[in-house]
């Protein structure tokens, strides 16, 4: 224990400053062990208790947290963590020796902004943890809006797997949007996929994404969706799994502008409006054997009675950029049918009504517009 240079008083020597000891009620420093001194101080201090109802995280707080600051971005904490202005990430734990000059009292910024959607926050946190970049406040806000609107419209619960493709690197674009599923359906990238802030791009020869979701597990009434741009003359499968007649999508088949949504026995559907490319905000849905309805960039292009509604008996993983032709556990797209599209969103789910398809198209396009990667 140190002696004072003035009158032999004890000033420093174990934890914190002597001044603080005085404030806390000690008249003199007792002869205790270090552990006992720590316990005494903690007993004197008012314990900090986290009360979620008193914490109103302001959007800018989240935006600050997700700003990449260097080669190793700091992951966003999914649940609001109370912070003060001088310590970005305090750990509310009484087991850590406190610094008496600073208390861990949360000082939430008064704000009328709604709370950040917890599922969106969890997704963004994992994107950053994976080394994703470009997650600006704009991207965070757009992602929050995406999740919130999908939930408000009752569509979020209908999505079985979906991929917003954020972060620009393989580890981040692979992340499936719903993190309550853990990493089970995170995409496995194979071949020459290119990753960027606009999404993921196929190469037309061997690039594909394996969702790890078995096609056989999709419901009979189901939807599929891909936001596609940068198509080339190669007419590959945009997505799928099941060979030909099951759960895949190919437009401009063999260059003859035949729309093909794999929802039945090798049905092809004549698109009522069809630009000669595989580009668009494509959403297709089948309900029983009553209807196959597809929208392209918000415009209905197919509304027909399907010949049948066939599920696949040999289980295959659903894919992006190809039609997976190998049974689980293998994965291989049909050679010669890989696409070159740039995909900015991918989803498989339960069937949508026409109204839901329109709403879904709007929500997805709004998301892409805010991110500056919309195609219409």
């Amino acid at each position: 224990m140190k002696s004072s240079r003035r009158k032999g008083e004890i000033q420093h020597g174990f934890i914190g400053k002597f001044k603080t000891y005085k404030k806390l009620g000690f008249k003199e420093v007792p002869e205790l062990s270090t552990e006992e001194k720590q316990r005494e101080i903690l007993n004197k201090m008012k314990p900090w208790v986290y009360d979620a109802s008193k914490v109103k995280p302001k959007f800018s707080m989240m935006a600050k947290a997700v700003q990449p600051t260097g080669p190793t971005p700091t992951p966003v904490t999914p649940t609001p963590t109370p912070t003060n202005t001088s310590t970005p990430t305090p750990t509310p734990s009484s087991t850590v020796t406190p610094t008496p000059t600073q208390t861990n009292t949360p000082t939430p910024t008064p704000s009328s902004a709604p709370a950040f959607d917890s599922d969106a926050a969890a997704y963004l946190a994992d994107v950053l943890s994976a080394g994703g970049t470009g997650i600006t406040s704009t991207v965070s806000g757009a992602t929050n809006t995406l999740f919130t609107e999908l939930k408000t419209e009752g569509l979020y619960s209908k999505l079985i797997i979906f991929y917003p493709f954020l972060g620009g690197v393989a580890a981040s674009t692979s992340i499936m949007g719903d993190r309550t599923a853990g990493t089970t359906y995170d995409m496995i990238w194979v071949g020459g996929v290119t990753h960027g802030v606009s999404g993921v791009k196929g190469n037309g020869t061997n690039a594909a994404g394996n969702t790890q979701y078995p096609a056989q597990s999709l419901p009979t009434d189901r939807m599929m969706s891909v936001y596609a741009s940068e198509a080339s003359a190669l007419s590959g499968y945009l997505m799928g799994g099941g060979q030909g007649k099951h759960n895949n999508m190919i437009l401009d088949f063999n260059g003859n502008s035949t729309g093909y949504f794999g929802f039945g026995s090798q049905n092809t559907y004549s698109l009522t409006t069809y630009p000669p490319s595989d580009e668009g905000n494509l959403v297709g849905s089948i309900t029983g054997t009553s209807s196959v309805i597809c929208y392209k960039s918000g415009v209905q292009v197919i509304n027909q009675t399907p010949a049948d509604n066939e599920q696949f008996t040999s289980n295959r993983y659903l894919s992006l950029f190809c039609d997976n032709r190998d049974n689980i556990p293998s994965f291989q797209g049909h050679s010669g049918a890989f696409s070159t599209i740039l995909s900015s969103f991918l989803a498989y789910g339960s069937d949508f009504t026409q109204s839901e398809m329109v709403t879904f198209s709007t929500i997805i396009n709004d998301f892409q517009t805010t991110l500056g990667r919309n195609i219409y």
Partner: protein
Amino acid sequence: MIQVALLTVTQKDELVGQLFAVDSYFNPVQDCNDNWIISTQEIDGNIYPQFDWIEQLPIIDWCNPPVVI
């Protein structure tokens, strides 16, 4: 014209199931002449020294096999 890198069957077998970058696997496929190939993106993106030999692979034009629905 898309260009790709030509593999022998032995080389193909060596690459199957291997990572060329974080979260990205090699994916050899066959072209219209049954040649095994990988993409130039895989060559450019490879970060593992044990596969540096792929930089020496001959480059050929991609020949798309017929699409079968």
